């Protein structure tokens, strides 16, 4: 009892730490929506009021983030639309620069235009227009005006509520903090991120389209942009890497790279030019084969007197593409390299860290036994047990490369038809009955109608709660069937014993 006292104290100490950590650990903050308004447009070709009045009385709190979503319907006439802050009388508010663009309001100037049909504009970012504070604190509140520019007339039109064009829908959200991530890089919910790259992973580039311009779009946070963020694109030819003894560790040692500057925070879409490729990237891509690309958003660690150095990647992406057509050997090589990359990634995991002790230093230490066993066990686990996702990827690979090929592909097709199948209609039966004289009576039986007409009677009886007979009876039937199955199995087991 005396000996167990320190253990009890120790246990309570640990529990106190855990409880304290749970209570005082920083929790993920979810921004509250202070104000949210959709435009009333819900269908195409409807003239709607799209002025978004912000009434100070409708929300309270500190405005930190503003999100604007605009969508132009498919089929709309040529239209460019941006957002503009205006006061209640409709006059534009001079927030910062005095220009009629959103850049004065902290919005990237190039992101406010919907230039193609069905394009979606999304901007969610910090509210940087502190000069506008006096405006939105007004009693009647300012207006976010949707400003359209009809290309045919070339004149700015104010307010979609008053005149054409229509075909536009808008939503404005005001938050008191960073928005909850929804997985979209375009929104910048996760900070700086890469959205899409071109060529995409696995793309095949025809030799006729060379030289190829590399393009990347994504989002740069204001913080990263202020530190001097840039985009790095590095291209490498697979066989060149192997010639230098680098099967997959190509990203740090080899590659022809180029850097693309960013002009503003927010959404970006940058691409190389032919000049950039020939002068900086030095990458002719004149040989057919497998290539690899690495895309990075980089920020400098240090920046002194305008000189930035020691760039590190805040986000990176590895892709591969083929000039010409992929061969089976390319595919098997890719598979193996991806597998080996997984091996390298897992080396930094727990199993090897468990073996991070010096045998000679610990030779007379009683803890050596447990550490050694932990190390061996970890290594055996690491060697023999499949890492998460490997089995799943292997099954997908097996299904795509083997089970969909002749002859197994026929069975796979049937299995897929069963998996993806949905209830159709029963076939109709058509009968021609000869009545003499060369005439027929045609009779058509709609089996679906015949059967469902009878079967649907079970669904005609509806309870006061709106439940059909099936909703009520099916759980009872399943329970009875389940009990009968259990009884049958139990009886069979008892008979065998």
């Amino acid at each position: 009892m005396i000996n167990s006292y320190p253990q009890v104290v120790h246990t309570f100490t640990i529990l106190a730490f855990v409880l304290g950590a749970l209570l005082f650990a920083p929790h993920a903050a979810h921004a509250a929506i202070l104000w949210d308004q959709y435009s009333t447009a819900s269908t195409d070709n409807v003239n709607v009021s799209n002025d978004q009045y912000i009434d100070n009385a409708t929300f309270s709190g500190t405005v930190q983030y503003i999100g604007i979503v605009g969508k132009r319907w498919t089929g709309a006439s040529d239209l460019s639309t941006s957002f503009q802050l205006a006061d209640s009388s409709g006059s534009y508010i001079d927030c910062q620069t005095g220009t009629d663009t959103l850049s004065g309001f902290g919005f990237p100037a190039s992101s406010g235009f919907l230039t193609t049909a069905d394009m979606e504009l999304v901007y969610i970012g910090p509210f940087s227009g502190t000069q506008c504070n006096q405006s939105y604190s007004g009693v009647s509140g300012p207006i976010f005006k949707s400003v359209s520019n009809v290309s045919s007339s070339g004149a700015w039109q104010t307010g979609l509520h008053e005149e054409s064009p229509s075909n536009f829908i808008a939503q404005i959200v005001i938050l008191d903090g960073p928005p909850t991530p929804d997985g979209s890089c375009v929104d910048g919910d996760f900070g700086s991120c890469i959205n899409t790259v071109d060529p995409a992973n696995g793309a095949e580039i025809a030799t006729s389209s060379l030289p190829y311009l590399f393009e990347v779009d994504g989002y740069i946070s204001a913080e990263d942009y202020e530190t001097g963020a840039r985009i790095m694109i590095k291209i490498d030819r697979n066989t060149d890497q192997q010639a230098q003894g680098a099967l997959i560790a190509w990203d740090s040692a080899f590659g022809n790279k180029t850097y693309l500057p960013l002009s503003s925070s927010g959404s970006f879409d940058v691409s190389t030019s032919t000049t950039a490729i020939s002068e900086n990237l030095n990458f002719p891509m004149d040989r057919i084969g497998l290539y690899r690309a690495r895309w990075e958003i980089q920020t400098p660690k240090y920046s002194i007197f305008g000189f930035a150095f020691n760039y590190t990647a805040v986000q990176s992406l590895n892709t591969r593409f083929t000039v010409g057509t992929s061969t089976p050997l390319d595919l098997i090589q890719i598979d193996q390299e991806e597998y080996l990359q997984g091996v390298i990634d897992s080396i930094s995991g727990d199993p090897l860290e468990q073996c991070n002790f010096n045998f000679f230093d610990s030779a007379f230490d009683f803890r050596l036994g447990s550490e050694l066993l932990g190390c061996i066990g970890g290594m055996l686990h690491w060697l023999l047990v499949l890492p998460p996702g490997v089995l799943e990827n292997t099954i997908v690979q097996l299904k795509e490369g083997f089970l969909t090929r002749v002859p197994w592909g026929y069975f796979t097709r049937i299995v897929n038809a069963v998996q993806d199948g949905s209830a159709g209609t029963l076939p109709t039966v058509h009968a021609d009955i000869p009545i003499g004289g060369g005439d027929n009576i045609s009779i058509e039986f709609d089996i679906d109608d015949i059967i469902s007409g009878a079967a649907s009677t079970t669904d005609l009886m509806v309870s006061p709660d709106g439940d059909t007979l099936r909703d009520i009876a099916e759980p009872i039937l399943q329970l009875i069937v389940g009990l009968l199955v259990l009884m049958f199995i139990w009886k069979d087991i008892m008979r065998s014993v």
Partner: protein
Amino acid sequence: MISALFLSLAVSTLTMIFSFFPQVEVLPTIANVDLDTVIVGGIGSLFRLADLFWYITNVVQGFIYIMGYYAFKFTFKFLAGLFQGVGGAAIN
């Protein structure tokens, strides 16, 4: 990782070998009969019937459970019979 390597090698080799075989997107048409349409339509009709006669579906489901039990039982007895010769217990 060793197991993953062997698995990956086996699947990659199979994939490479069968990459020379044509990929099956749909079932073929034989004697002017589009088998893919017939199979997909037939499966859709089966789903429709299962939707209409849901109570029979539940009974069939119970029957499948019993069949699964028998499959497990016979497999167990088969394996037990294999090990009986090397000192395993006899299970009837």
